[in-house]
């Protein structure tokens, strides 16, 4: 079978010649095998490690563009790996977890992981998360700082503090705007309850999920075409929220 041409265009900032380099840290050979196939078919270069220490060493030896990290490793806690990586690199980390480990997932995200995938996941989901992570990393590098985020009919102008829906200005309260601005600035990434609360309400308010529930509802009412079926401000059950901006 002839290899299919990559359906993904590698991120702009990397140039068309250099293929993004993904480090997979997972101890299950079948998952690694599948990831390797999917990723290389889609234009990524794949390196894998089956243990935490090995993964940390590989990450240091040849810094990858993105890291896919399984939380259940044989030698060390995946959350710990996350913490150790964050001591020196901002490379996006996508954690893989199983359904019954919500708490670990959230802990990893709070420790600096960028996104998560719950096993079993589909290839589409995986590729979408990789794209978001790489784009976000590119923005971190300062090469592209967007001040206007567009999501369907919604336009959020971060610099001018202006929000429009279908071209019409939407009036938001101060807190609503701060919340939306934080979500939009981190568009397409999952944001944990604690992360959002401490950024928008302050570091001491990390436990007041009820604020978030109520304010997200307000935002949905003002912005979503159908607030009951939100398309742009979605709930990540047990984890947090995600703002889906146009790519």
């Amino acid at each position: 079978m002839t290899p299919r041409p990559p359906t993904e265009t590698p991120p702009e900032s990397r140039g068309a010649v250099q293929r993004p380099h993904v480090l997979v840290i997972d101890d299950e050979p079948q998952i690694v095998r599948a990831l390797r196939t999917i990723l290389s078919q889609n234009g990524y270069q794949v390196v894998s490690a089956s243990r935490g220490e090995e993964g940390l060493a590989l990450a240091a030896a040849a810094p990858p563009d993105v890291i896919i990290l399984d939380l259940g490793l044989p030698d060390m806690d995946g959350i710990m790996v996350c913490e150790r990586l964050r001591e020196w690199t901002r490379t996006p980390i996508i954690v893989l977890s199983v359904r019954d480990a919500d708490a670990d997932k959230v802990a990893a995200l709070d420790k600096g992981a960028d996104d998560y995938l719950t096993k079993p996941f589909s290839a589409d989901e995986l590729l979408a998360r990789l794209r978001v992570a790489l784009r976000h990393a590119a923005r971190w590098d300062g090469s592209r700082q967007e001040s206007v985020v567009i999501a369907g009919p919604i336009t959020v102008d971060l610099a001018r503090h202006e929000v429009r829906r279908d071209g019409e200005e939407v009036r938001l309260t101060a807190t609503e705007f701060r919340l939306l601005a934080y979500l939009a600035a981190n568009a397409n990434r999952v944001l944990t309850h604690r992360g959002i609360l401490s950024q928008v309400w302050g570091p001491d308010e990390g436990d007041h999920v009820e604020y978030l529930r109520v304010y997200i509802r307000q935002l949905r009412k003002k912005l979503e075409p159908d607030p009951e079926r939100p398309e742009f401000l979605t709930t990540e059950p047990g984890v947090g929220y995600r703002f889906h901006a146009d790519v």
Partner: protein
Amino acid sequence: MKPAVLLARPVVRYLLAALIIVLTTGLLRLRHPDLGTALVPLLYLLSVGLCTAFLGLGPGIASAVLAFLAFNYFFLEPFHTMVVYRAEDTAVLLVFLVVAVVISQMVGRAQAGLAASRAREREASLLYELSTALAGLTDAQDIGQVLCEQTRQTLQAERVELEAGSVDAGPRVQAAAPALGASPERPADEVMALQTARGRLGEIRLWLVSAPLAASEARLLYTFASQGALALERAWLAQSEQRAKVLEESDRLKSALLSSVSHELRTPLATIKAAATSLRSGEIAWDSAGGQDLLGAIDDEADHLNRLVGNLLDMSRIESGALRPQRQWNLLSEIVAGVADRMQGLTVDHVLEIDVPEELPLVPVDYVQFEQVFTNLISNGLKYAPPHSTISIRAALDGADTLRVQVSNQGPPVPEQDLARIFDKFYRVTAAERVTGTGLGLSICKGIVEAHGGRIWAENLPQGFAFVFLLPLTWEGAPPPRVPLEGDGG
């Protein structure tokens, strides 16, 4: 000290006996001229009798001897000597001594018999009290505690401690009366083994106020210890029997689970295997309509498998008590809308009607677990209710601090006697072959709702069937918070 305690001491009793004879002698000496000489020995005999009756056999005999001496010394000529002149006086004296001793002995025996039967009666009633106290108890620790307290009360001990264990029983029992406080510094005054036919279980240690125990008390302690040992053994036996029953039950459930699960797991696996192999063999092209169908089947069945495994995991966590809700204040409307959205594909043949006002107070629940509850309840409706019928979800306040949620469908009614049982694992009203699923969905719902302090039940409606659950709105005593909203234009 109380008179009763004083009387318990032999020295005191002998002194009292002597005192009575001295008093009698004094009285007789005062009144001697008025009394006939014949009355003197009789009055002495009366005193001896009283001494024996009230002070016991030993003091009685002592009083008899003392009375004999006093009679001789003060009332037989020559006075104030121990010498007797007249032969008949000698006879009177001897007869007096014999009669006094005999009376003493007889009264003493009767007295001792009475005391013994009183003691036996007391023992019996104490023992009865103990066995009544022990009768209702099934917990070894409670038995130990009651035994300690009763022993302490009965024997007026300063402190009683118990320690017992058995190889095939649970944790060792350690009890003490008074329950608080440390054991005295000195070694225990009495140690009694807790012994049954099967061996030594442990011991009771006593620290007494006045050591040692009287024989009757020691006997009582022995009886208490053997009663206690029997009760402990009974409790342990019952416990291990209970454990055996639970094990047997869980074994039975496990095999039911295995057979149900292996069947359920194989169905999607069979589809996946067949589809994958036929795609691999090249008989069906990947990009043909047939190929796409097979790929779709693999994808769907993988999701199905994932749900099954998730259900099993949830069930095992509920069973082992490991299902700890990660509670947060949530909007029920958000949870329900999320579920409805995700189940959109599955509910196309039914009408989903949602009436969960967003003005309802926040609910203190685990978001993910309640998604699961709604998913399972809706799935249940999808399985049993006819196509194009309505499944509705309603939530409303039930009193000030309870939320009542009803998930109803227009499915057939369930026989009244099955209503409670449908929440049991693997229980199905319909024959298993006709409906898919592990038979765990509803018991998971029950587990989750109960872990949140709520209650769930099922009921037949005039037009269908409903699951209803009540959820407390308070969390650790706190009512739902009200989140203040700012005015627009801020």
